[in-house]
């Protein structure tokens, strides 16, 4: 009962073709060549046009074809079905037992009727509603996640021995120590740009020397912490999502839960606490580097020596600017860590979701960092600091 047709050993495609002959009222169609999936293109449409154009009974003779497969048989069966629905019989005639059986096996399958849910009358409104409800749901879920982290954090403060030291130190190295070079270089350059542009613009008013004030306020209050947070969000938030997401899709997190361990305590807490410790340190380094870059630019453009810069800086600098910048950093650390871990734990079993969520966590954490920074700016202005 093997259906291998004679030419099975040569996979060279031979063209499918057909000839027609009118026998009285009946149109006889003789098929030739190989009616297989690779040769159906074009000839299938031509056959359909020919057959559907004829009003009357049809005969299709298969005995002259050299090879038939399920795709070829299916396309003949579909044609027969269409003709039958038009009330005109179409006979598929063949002597080959193989072809007969293939024709029986290759029946078209109807798509199951779509569920009878009536389409919405206002699709735009429906989509808006879905968007709002899903956004609220995600927001609520993230808030719950943050709450869970807070209780875990308090619990860990109360029982410091439960804190896992090794992962904490590991993540401090990954998110802190290894980020120092890139943060230092970037903020050095930003400091240079701010000081240089400031000096150029202020020179028009003859107030060139105020470039140091400008540098102090910009770097200490905003640039140092913002640039550092954005770099860390891009670097650490994505790696948290990828690490935890890979663990979720590998069912490692499920294994932890099955042992009665809380992934929040084991996976999330060390990462967020590591960021909480290292981000303020990184911001401090960033501030110093930005000021150094600014000093270099001012030395170059205003010919103000480094010692003169230090003198000037010392006389104008306000400690509150430094604290305004530093106080923001732990909040940013929590946002970056929580978003990264939340998205990671949201991963599904497919590897694709991890990649998607990694992108999402970077975008979301940078977005939230900037929004929170704006809120801080308003807050500090309102209370007059």
């Amino acid at each position, binding site marked *: *009962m*093997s*259906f*291998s047709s004679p030419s*099975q*050993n040569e*996979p*060279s*495609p031979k063209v499918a073709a057909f000839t027609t002959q009118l026998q009285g009222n009946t149109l006889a169609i003789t098929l030739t060549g190989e009616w*297989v*999936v*690779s040769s*159906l*293109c*074009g000839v*299938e*449409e031509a056959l359909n046009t020919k057959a559907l154009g004829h009003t009357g009974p049809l005969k299709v003779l298969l005995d002259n074809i050299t090879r038939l*497969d*399920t*795709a070829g048989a*299916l*396309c003949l069966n*579909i044609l027969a079905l269409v003709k039958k629905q038009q009330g005109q019989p179409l006979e598929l005639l063949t002597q080959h037992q*193989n072809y007969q*059986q*293939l024709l029986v*096996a*290759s*029946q*078209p*399958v*109807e*798509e*199951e009727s779509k569920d009878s849910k009536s389409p919405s009358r206002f699709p735009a409104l429906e989509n808006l509603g879905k968007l709002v409800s899903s956004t609220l749901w995600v927001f609520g879920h993230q808030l719950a996640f943050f709450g869970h982290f807070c209780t875990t954090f308090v619990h860990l403060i109360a029982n410091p021995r439960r804190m896992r030291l090794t992962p904490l130190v590991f993540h401090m190295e990954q998110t802190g120590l290894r980020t120092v070079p890139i943060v230092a270089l970037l903020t050095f350059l930003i400091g240079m740009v701010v000081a240089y542009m400031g000096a150029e613009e202020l020179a028009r008013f003859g107030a060139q020397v105020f470039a140091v004030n400008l540098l102090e306020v910009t770097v200490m209050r905003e640039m140092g912490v913002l640039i550092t947070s954005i770099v860390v969000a891009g670097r650490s938030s994505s790696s948290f999502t990828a690490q935890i997401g890979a663990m979720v899709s590998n069912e490692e997190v499920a294994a932890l839960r099955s042992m009665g361990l809380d992934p929040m305590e084991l996976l999330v807490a060390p990462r967020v606490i590591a960021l909480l410790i290292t981000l303020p340190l990184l911001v401090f380094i960033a501030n110093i580097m930005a000021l150094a870059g600014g000093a270099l630019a001012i030395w170059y453009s205003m010919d103000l020596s480094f010692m003169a810069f230090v003198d000037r800086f010392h006389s104008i600098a306000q400690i509150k600017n430094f604290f305004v910048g530093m106080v923001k950093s732990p909040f940013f650390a929590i946002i970056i860590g929580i978003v990264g871990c939340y998205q990671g734990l949201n991963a*599904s*079993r*497919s*590897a*694709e*979701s991890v990649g998607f969520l990694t992108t999402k966590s970077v975008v979301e954490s940078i977005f939230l960092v900037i929004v929170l920074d704006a809120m801080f700016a308003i807050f500090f202005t309102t209370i007059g600091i």
Partner: protein
Amino acid sequence: MAASTIEQPTANNVLVRLRGITNRFGRNTVHENLDLDIRKGEILGLIGGSGTGKSVLLRTIIGLNKQQNGSIEIMGVNMDTATEATKAKVRNSWGVLFQDGALFSSLSVLDNIQFPLREFTHISPALRESIARMKLHMVGLPQDAAPKFPGDLSGGMRKRVGLARALVMDPFLLLLDEPTAGLDPVGAAAFDQLVLTLRNSLGLTVCMVTHDLDSLYAICDRVAVLADKKILAVDTIPKLLDNPYPWIQEYFKGPRGRAAAFGKGVA
């Protein structure tokens, strides 16, 4: 019932001919001077202990792993010396089912099955979809699975979709890597019957790597035993039972082997 349907072996109904295959990874030799013939229309089971290189052998046949030595001939085409165009034709005439289906996770079930049609043929989208739906039906899945994504499917369904994709170009040769691993016994038996039915109605040649003794007894015409870096024996199960090689004896006469044989009334 399986054995009665195949033709008597003759010299020129060999579909795949492996000669002197040697595979080495670093200093670890997996295959050495290995010979294997897969006959047209048969279902060949490939068994062997863990780490004997069953999957490596399958990947070597497919061309995903280049052998250090030896020749592979598929449908009379030497896969090492043939032109790229000839090899492409051969590649289009086999279907491969990887262990977990290897479905494209960004495509729906229907698009996964249609993928080879879309890439290699120019047939109309309507017929393409009809073919995909027919294959979905052939592997025993309901039509409402069509719009789903691989992430939403169970392991057994993923394997069936993978099989439908492997079948969509109407291949001559079907290569299956542990098709029943991870399926429940009912699902595994249904899958076995499915492979048998497809072989009988479409005239396929099937080579399957398997650990599943029940599948071996149920559908395999011949079984190839991979041990000591080569194919130790290729034969029907009753004849393999008489093979004195210790691993084969342990395999078929061990508690699991006996249970499977008892189920089939062989031993």
